[in-house]
């Protein structure tokens, strides 16, 4: 009998891609549930559409590329991409929005670059940006929280609206978005942006029903739920804490500076944290292990840069929210960040190759 001698490492990490992806999908559940509670069935339908499209696309491309289909189709990365895209879409967007977005994300952004692990950009965000640039009208059809909608948006009505553009009673999307007062609702971020150009102060625009009692009615709870899921992921060591934390700190500092200088024309720090896609972006998008920075220091810089960009796009860009654009820009910067934050190899001096 001989001893079986193996070289280090002796302590193996058993985490595999499917397990990791399953954990992340699980962690989005609180956020998705909050979205369902406040905004109705729209996003769930879009998630279902996107996941179906993603599986079909992955199957087609994998068989064209002669890859092991069963292994790569169910590793969960495609499903996660579709899930994130479905969460981001406006709830009442037409069905082809999620289909086209997913096809672009899976086929062009992910598979054409070589599949999982080779894509330079986050597929979900690239798909979202493509949709936002291509279909500006449909991608801004944000639905106000259910409590503010005069029309009963049950499951059947939402399905009808997504597929035909009208509810069973014949209300159009535009009518759904109009409140009892006859004012079209937008997202809190959108409202702030529009009101600022109209010359209103933040204090005045905060009177709108869309902001609720705190920062952003409905949105704050969705963001809170995603924060919860994110903390669960960090606790499970599925994602690194550096990029979300540095991102949130960066956004906090930027908005704090803005708020201190002119409180009338800049939204509060907590408004920036709990509206739009901040928490989703921080914990589920920026932490993408493929397209993000990889070293510890690199992740911190990556997060800081993303926070700065989100703040700049939100305050002085053309779009109300800038998570997707900021993430894509940071993805572009990630290889450079990694290049300059390469950790010192043990036993080598700093700067020694």
């Amino acid at each position, binding site marked *: 009998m001989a001893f079986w001698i193996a070289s280090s490492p002796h302590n193996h990490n058993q985490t595999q891609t499917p397990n990791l992806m399953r954990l992340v999908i699980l962690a989005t559940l609180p956020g998705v549930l909050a979205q369902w509670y406040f905004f109705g069935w729209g996003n769930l339908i879009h998630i279902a559409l996107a996941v179906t499209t993603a599986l079909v696309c992955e199957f087609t491309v994998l068989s064209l590329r002669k890859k092991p289909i069963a292994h790569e189709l169910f590793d969960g990365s495609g499903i996660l991409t579709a899930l994130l895209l479905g969460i981001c879409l406006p709830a009442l967007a*037409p069905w082809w929005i999620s289909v*086209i977005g997913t096809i672009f994300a899976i086929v*062009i952004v992910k598979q054409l670059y070589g599949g999982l692990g080779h894509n330079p950009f986050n597929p979900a965000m690239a798909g979202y940006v*493509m949709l936002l*640039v*291509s*279909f*500006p*009208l*449909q991608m801004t059809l944000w639905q106000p929280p259910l409590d503010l909608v005069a029309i009963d948006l049950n499951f059947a009505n939402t399905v009808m609206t997504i597929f035909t553009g009208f509810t069973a009673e014949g209300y159009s999307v535009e009518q759904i978005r109009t409140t009892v007062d006859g004012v079209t609702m937008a997202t809190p971020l959108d409202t702030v942006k529009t009101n600022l150009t109209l010359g209103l102060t933040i204090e005045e625009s905060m009177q709108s029903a869309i902001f609720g009692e705190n920062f952003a009615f409905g949105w704050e709870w969705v963001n809170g739920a995603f924060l919860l899921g994110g903390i669960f992921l960090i606790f499970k060591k599925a994602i690194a804490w550096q990029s979300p934390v540095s991102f949130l700190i960066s956004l906090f500092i930027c908005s704090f500076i803005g708020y201190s200088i002119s409180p009338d024309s800049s939204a509060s720090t907590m408004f920036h944290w709990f509206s739009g896609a901040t928490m989703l972006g921080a914990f589920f998008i920026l932490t993408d292990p493929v397209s993000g920075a990889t070293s510890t220091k690199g992740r911190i810089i990556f997060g800081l840069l993303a926070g700065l960009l989100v703040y700049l796009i939100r305050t002085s860009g053309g779009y109300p929210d800038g998570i997707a654009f900021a993430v894509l820009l940071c993805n572009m910067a990630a290889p450079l960040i990694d290049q300059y934050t390469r950790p010192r190899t043990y036993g080598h001096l700093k700067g020694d190759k």
Partner: protein
Amino acid sequence: MSKELTPESATSSDVAQDIEAQEQAQLTAKLKAELKAEYKELAIQGLWKNNPGLVQLLGLCPLLAVTATVTNALGLALATLLVLICSNVTVSAIRHWVPKEIRIPIFVLIIAAFVTCVQLLMNAYTYGIYQSLGIFLPLIVTNCAIIGRAEAYASKNPVKQAAFDGLMMGLGFAAVLILLGIIREILGQGTLFDGANLLLGEWASSLRIEVMQLDSQFLLAILPPGAFIAMGLLIAIKNAIDNHIKAKQAEHASEQVIERVRVNFDS
């Protein structure tokens, strides 16, 4: 009658002349065959193997900028084709008198002159297209495909071949332009030949085909990023076809080798 008689009473000098004539005929036939082969090679190079759009990747700026509709693509394709042929002919015609040191400025001047002609013509006869092509019409001067052909081929070859080369390169470029235009117009607006009357006259407005009814324009296909993506896909398809052909040829060659071995073995 007399011709039939001559072979019998042929003198040695006549035989020599005959042989010479035969040699001459052979030589001309050979030259003709060579010329034919060269034309064929030029056509293959321009249209496929060395396509300015897909392989040389020259003139990408107008290629990507104006192919949002087939009509625009066609307009630019015709303008480029015309300039390419004329500049090739001129450069080839004056190739013996152009000093090597200053050939590039001279080529640019020639090209610029033809571009100005084309621009003025389009301004006069197809004003709508002239307006929608905008800056990209005068920018044909800087299209590397044209100066590339002038430098690489026309300045070293006779006029006829140079003209043919210009025609083939221009057609290859035009094919890519029109293909991109078709893809982007169908995806972007769901139509084909929209606004063809601007280029071809009033009768062409009936050419407009509604391929599919779109609720809204697919802006990505109309904007330049869509052109980049479509272009990338076209290049990928071309490379895939080339690889396929190469694989088939290799298969064919290996089969032949096996046959020969068998024949040797049997004998």
